[in-house]
């Protein structure tokens, strides 16, 4: 806690937002709302008491979260006809109850359908480590703002890797909690059985405090599981005692750039992780997640595709239209694969408390790149960058990302920390150990 007032912190954040305009990470600055909220906190707590663990902390949110009085854009012009939100998303309200202050809504891939941070309507988010490169997506602006040091925490969403990929490419910590853990009410949907609300942060303690503030039952979210609040902050310093950690091999072992490979080796060394566990259905898991996403998102937008197809960016529109036409047998087959993949992962968790895997095969590609070359393989950039995150997404398990400088250039990479359902506490413990041991050195603003 600093001695600054909430208003001081908001003014500093707004000035930082101005300075970071070149990375195009923001679509809406909420200056008036943030100043009013800060003034209210300063009046209510004049002696330095705290409204909550996030007292006076500016935060940003991907522009798919509802904010009262604004139309929720989800990075698309196809949503412009929607009425303004009548209340804040559960996640936004929860962070403000804990003392946080929303200052900005962030750029994203249109309708969350992408890993690059490119957007036909709002322009591309640029990576603050190298503005000629992707921020990664779809939570591109949230990752870029945190990596640029404008805010220390931001809300994102993850369907196939939309938090994990930009966290790795921009160099921030992140957490995608267990499917159903956090309320998704007021978060514009993408693929109903895959969508997660989550957090990107510059610091593990901030990540944990923010995640803890987001927990809680929401009777208005039919997808939320019935779970008690299980705070992770008290366990952050528990270390690795009693944890058996494995390095996922085979599918997750290649292709890897030199930097991504170094990061995995370094993480495995720090964590004394055991090489050997295999998820034999990982490639099938990625394929089934691809099919599931196509079907669920195509179905979601079917009416808008019929009524106003011109309001979608062309690449997203044609992907959604194709998804809307997929034979049901393929969708059902993907859900059968979901059961097999989840069962195989559950078997691994009988032996391991956590597994690690690369977040991306390589560092951030250049904006406009159609392909990436990794270990001699040429792959389509916009899909291959998510090959390691998408392979796990059907299982809904909690996954954190620890950023790493890779080869020591300006371009970071990330390692996924994969844990059994509802064990976000282990994810955060492992992230805290990696941070303490210098794994993320030089990346945190």
């Amino acid at each position, binding site marked *: 806690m600093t001695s600054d007032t909430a208003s001081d912190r908001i003014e500093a954040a707004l000035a930082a937002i101005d300075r970071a305009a070149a990375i195009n990470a923001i679509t809406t600055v909420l200056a008036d709302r943030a100043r009013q909220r800060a003034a209210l906190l300063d009046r209510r707590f004049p002696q330095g008491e705290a409204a909550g663990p996030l007292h006076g902390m500016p935060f940003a949110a991907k522009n798919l979260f509802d904010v009262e009085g604004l139309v929720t854009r989800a990075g698309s012009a196809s949503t412009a006809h929607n009425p303004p939100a009548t209340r804040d998303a559960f996640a936004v309200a929860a962070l403000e109850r804990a003392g946080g202050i929303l200052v900005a809504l962030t750029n994203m891939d249109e309708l969350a359908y992408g890993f690059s941070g490119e957007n036909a309507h709002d322009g591309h988010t640029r990576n603050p480590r190298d503005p000629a490169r992707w921020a990664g997506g779809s939570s591109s602006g949230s990752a870029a703002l945190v990596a640029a040091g404008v805010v220390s925490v931001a809300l994102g969403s993850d369907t196939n890797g939309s938090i994990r990929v930009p966290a790795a490419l921009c160099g921030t910590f992140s957490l995608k909690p267990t499917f159903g853990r956090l309320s998704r009410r007021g978060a514009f949907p993408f693929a109903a059985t895959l969508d997660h609300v989550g957090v990107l942060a510059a610091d593990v303690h901030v990540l944990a405090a923010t995640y803890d503030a987001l927990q809680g039952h929401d009777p208005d979210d039919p997808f939320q599981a019935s779970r008690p609040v299980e705070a992770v902050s008290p366990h952050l310093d528990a270390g690795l005692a009693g944890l058996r950690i494995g390095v996922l091999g085979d599918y997750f072992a290649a292709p890897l750039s030199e930097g991504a490979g170094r990061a995995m080796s370094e993480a495995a060394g720090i964590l004394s992780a055991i090489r050997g566990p295999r998820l034999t259905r990982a490639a099938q898991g990625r394929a089934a997640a691809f099919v599931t996403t196509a079907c669920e998102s195509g179905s979601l937008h079917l009416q808008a595709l019929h009524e106003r*197809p011109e309001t979608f960016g062309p690449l997203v529109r044609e992907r959604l239209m194709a998804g809307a036409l997929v034979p049901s047998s393929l969708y059902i087959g993907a859900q059968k694969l*979901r059961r097999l993949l989840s069962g195989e992962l*559950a078997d691994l968790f009988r032996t391991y408390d956590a597994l690690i895997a690369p977040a991306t095969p390589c560092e951030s590609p250049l904006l406009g790149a159609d392909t990436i070359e990794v270990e001699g393989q040429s792959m389509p950039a916009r899909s291959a960058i998510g090959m390691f995150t998408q392979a796990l997404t059907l*299982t809904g398990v909690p996954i954190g990302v620890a950023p790493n400088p890779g080869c020591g250039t300006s371009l970071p990479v990330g390692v996924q920390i994969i844990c059994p359902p509802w064990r976000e506490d282990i994810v955060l413990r492992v992230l805290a150990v990696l941070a303490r041991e210098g794994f993320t050195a030089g990346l945190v603003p």
Partner: protein
Amino acid sequence: MNPVKMLDAEAYIDAVAPLAGFTPQPAMREGIAANLRRIVDFAAVFIEDPAVQKTEPLFAPFQGPADEG
């Protein structure tokens, strides 16, 4: 019959898109067909696996006893 093997993307779009409620403009047709072929290519990675064929579907994570934490 395996739908992966029987799919002719262009013919399929012409037949099914109107039933789904939209008629793609000619300029969109090629892009939709390319995406549809891609989806089918991904489905081919798992759809014919005998283990997949004999398994009951799981429509969201953590719906079965084996998935409970």
